[in-house]
């Protein structure tokens, strides 16, 4: 009995000692950080318009503010060798937009995007559009797999599609592939259905192909179109395959974001790429090509 009491006491003592985790505010000086402007813009000659977003960063330490402030009073401008153009604020998305008629984006050319605030704060980022080269981008339907029969007794197939390209740019170049299916979102009966594109392969979306120079061997990836069971409105399925060639900043930025694991306690901390002087974010560029396949 006495031994049991001793054991109980020792256990409680040891267990409580182990469970004691003395917590207090850290005594080391904390980083004194002011909020910074975050400018993000992806520039391409293959888009009808360019979009930039301007927000404030929120210092971690200090009085809590749950909101990421979007900046709506900035003057955002793009400057190139042929002139400059100002972005306008699109009120719904709170993004800054400029249409391609106002500034021609040319491959091989360097552009600077800047954002000025009325109080004089300014940030800017610079990038050089990749040179266009013949990448021999192709798609090939490899085979099909029967998925199921629909309500009308019709066979529904999934298709394996191979995308391939041969980088021909000299020096290092960076590519992404994407495979998408067209959908119509029919949420409001009194409004026409909206066209949208659904990713077929999320893993492929976050993968880069890096080339150190012209390649005799093609880079490739195979995706499955899946059964496509979303809706009946688009009975003739349309698939679009994209090849994006980004500049170095485009690659470094996205690689760092894809590596970022948020609050995963097991992951190594990630420093996100930024080429914005005086702030955070990225100004980078890309070219894109697409191929379309309609359901056979």
């Amino acid at each position, binding site marked *: 009995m006495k031994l049991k009491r001793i054991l109980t006491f020792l256990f409680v003592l*040891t267990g409580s000692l182990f469970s004691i985790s*003395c917590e207090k505010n850290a005594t080391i000086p*904390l980083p004194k950080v002011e909020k910074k402007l975050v400018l993000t813009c992806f520039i391409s000659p293959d888009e009808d318009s360019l979009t930039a977003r301007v*927000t404030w960063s*929120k210092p971690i330490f200090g009085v809590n503010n749950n909101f990421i402030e979007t900046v709506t009073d900035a003057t955002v401008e793009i400057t190139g060798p042929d002139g400059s153009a100002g972005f306008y604020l699109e009120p719904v998305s709170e993004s800054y937009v400029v249409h391609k008629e106002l500034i021609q984006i040319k491959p091989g050319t360097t552009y600077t995007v800047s954002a000025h605030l009325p109080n004089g704060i300014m940030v800017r980022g610079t990038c050089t559009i990749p040179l266009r080269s013949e990448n021999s981008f192709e798609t090939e339907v490899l085979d099909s797999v029967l998925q199921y029969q629909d309500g009308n007794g019709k066979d529904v197939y999934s298709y394996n599609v191979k995308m391939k390209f041969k980088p021909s740019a000299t020096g290092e170049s960076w590519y992404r592939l*994407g495979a*998408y299916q067209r959908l119509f979102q029919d949420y409001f009966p009194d409004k026409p259905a909206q066209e949208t594109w659904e990713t077929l392969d999320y893993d492929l979306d976050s993968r880069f192909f890096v080339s150190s120079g012209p390649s005799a061997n093609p880079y490739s990836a195979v995706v499955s179109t899946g059964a496509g069971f979303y809706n009946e409105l688009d009975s003739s399925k349309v698939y679009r395959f994209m090849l994006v060639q980004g500049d170095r900043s485009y690659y470094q930025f996205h690689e760092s974001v894809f590596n970022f694991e948020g*609050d995963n306690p097991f992951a190594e901390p990630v420093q996100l790429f930024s080429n914005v002087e005086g702030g*955070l974010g990225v100004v980078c560029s890309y070219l894109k090509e697409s191929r379309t396949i309609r359901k056979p």
Partner: protein
Amino acid sequence: MCFVLKIQGQTSKPDKITISGYVKEEGSNEPLVGATVYIPRLKTGTVTNGFGYYALTVPSDSVTIWFSYVGYQIQKIRLDNPQSQVLSISLSEGKTLNEVTIIGNRDTMPQTVENVQMSQLSIRPADVKAIPALLGEKDVIKVLQLMPGVQKGSEGSAGLYVRGGGPDQNLILLDDAPVYNAFHLFGFFSLFNGDALKTIELTKGGFPARFGGRLSSVLEMRMKEGNQQKIKGEGGVGLLSSRFTIEGPIFKNKTSFLFSGRRSYLDILAAPFQNSDSKSKFYFMDFNMKVNHTFSDKDKLYLSGYFGRDLFGFVERASVFGEKEEAGLYWGNATATLRWNHVFNPRLFSNISLIYSRYRFNIYNNSTRSGSEFSLKYYSGIEDFGAKADLDYYYSTVHQIKFGGQAVWHTFTPSAIVIKDASQNEDRNEVKQYGSLESALYVEDLIRVTDRLAFNPGLRQSYFYSDGVSRIKLEPRLSARYKIRSDLAVKASAADMNQFIHLLTNTGVGLPTDLWIPSSPKISPQRSQQFALGLAKDLPKHNLTISLEGYYKQMKQVISYKEGASFLEIESANNTQKSYAWEDQIVRGKSWSYGVEAMVQKHVGKLTGWVGYTLSWTRMKFPDLNFGKAFYARYDRRHDASVVVMYKLKDGISLSATWVYGTGNAITLPLASYSLPTHSPLPSANSFLSAYDNATEYSDRNAYRMAAYHRMDVGIQWHKKKSWGERTWELSVYNVYNHRNPYFYYIGNTTNSQNQSVTTLKQITLFPFIPSLSYNFKF
């Protein structure tokens, strides 16, 4: 006290003779490693090797040979007209209270000054038992962390960071078998039971050619052989674990055994308090065993082994629906060594070993729900089969040559995932294993050019084969010593090292999730060059030794997890877009470290201990980390100091205290959060994805420092002789002045004077003031 024995030789007289034999402990016949065999008149001598063997070739005139070992009574053997002979000696343990021992005798050979080897630390098992420890758990590695040049990673951690090197850069050997993860309880304790150990030696630099395979240190531990005369035992009961060791003869003076075991019992004590539907399991245990047989003076055979395991898990049952879930993790090492000592002739001694070692880490999760079974098992590990041969050739008192070779077949399992999910009809078995061959040949020569000047040059040729790629590396080594005076020497060393196997450690969490991986076409071997220069001084009148060393070490092809990588394939809610292959999760860079270490040590007397101080810098540079900018290593510690004191108050009572101080670890802090859109190749006009609200701006890597670490531990031991042996009660206190040392920081909230919620940095202290009581016995 010392003994003088006179031995009369025969009448025929060769020019030179060789005296050889073993130096052992009287009573147990335990070989004494590093015992001094010295001839004062000739100012020459040697030390016993790892098996207690020595050989000395001297002129055939009358000589008096001194046999000595710290803490033991000196024996002086006079040989008149000696012949070549086997002369094995037994030394008795000396009483250090009143008697002068070897270090105090000016005529003996001072150890520190005489040794050509620098950057080497020896720990006596008796000191491990005397120094106060966390929860009374005596720990070999924690005592090593009190030495200059050796640092721990974090509060309570038993990791070794030696001269700026990472924890994977230490070769830890237990009776020649490598131990790959030397920790219990998430790194809080090492798995070495001091009761089973005879010698503990750490080499931080100036590596002799017989050592290789790691960049930063070699921790060589030898188990006791077992008392050859009578059964003896010892053990202890503490707050966390209990241990027991028994040793003795199987055949007196021929065959002996040793068995030592240890187990924690918090789980046993907690069992009555746990819910029958929900039980936790947590324990660690380890066993050491050794058997050895002496065939003759020329042949001995040893078999030794180790097995250890840690387990943390839980079992939950929902009795209504018959659901059950159990999950947890366990890890452990197993080693075995079969060794044969053979004396070819008095000047040529050999040791041939067959070695096995295995480390395995497992995570498991088994559940039964709605009659459907799910099973997940992830494991990683490494397994070795090896052989080595080491020969000591005592050519003359000028040349003592060591040469030999080794070969090891490694089987790496960096990741193995086995998933069986009946509800999803999933049966996945992805086991990746790689085999590699690592081998080496070496030769080194301890050259005593004059009484003052000695060199130890060596050359090691390493070979590694993996995944179709062979690598051969030459590693030159050199140590030198010049005696300015009999009690003062300058030493220097240079060593080129290669490391073919690597450990990936996750910096975020302190779990035993480390992965051992081989060099391959994608992963080059790590390489280092280290240079050291130092002074060694003996103060025999005061039983003090003083050392001062400066070093510079550069390491190339050092590996690290890349940013965002983790040890386990995880699909987070934020990001389901990635797949992980461990080979693609690492980056390579370089590291360099330099510093100065000082130590004053008192080995014998009523008061013993040491004071150590290290001033050092460790930096790293990886092209793919920190935007290619150099940064401090996480364990870079500018100042590291320790004071260790052991005092025999009187017969039956001894006191001990330690005080440690260290600059805080380097850490990376988050600075700000922000919204960060990415681009998608979507074929629509607006290519922005939904924004990343949780993007975080971090400081430069390891740009901030944790608060400085310091604490004091004290202990008192009461010894009492009993009819059956001796018992010792020990009361110790860890962190006696309750300093709140930070274990880790996290982002938390507090409220300011305006009642606003404020985000701040919070600190967790793991071990406050912790008393412990333990009972130890020996018979």
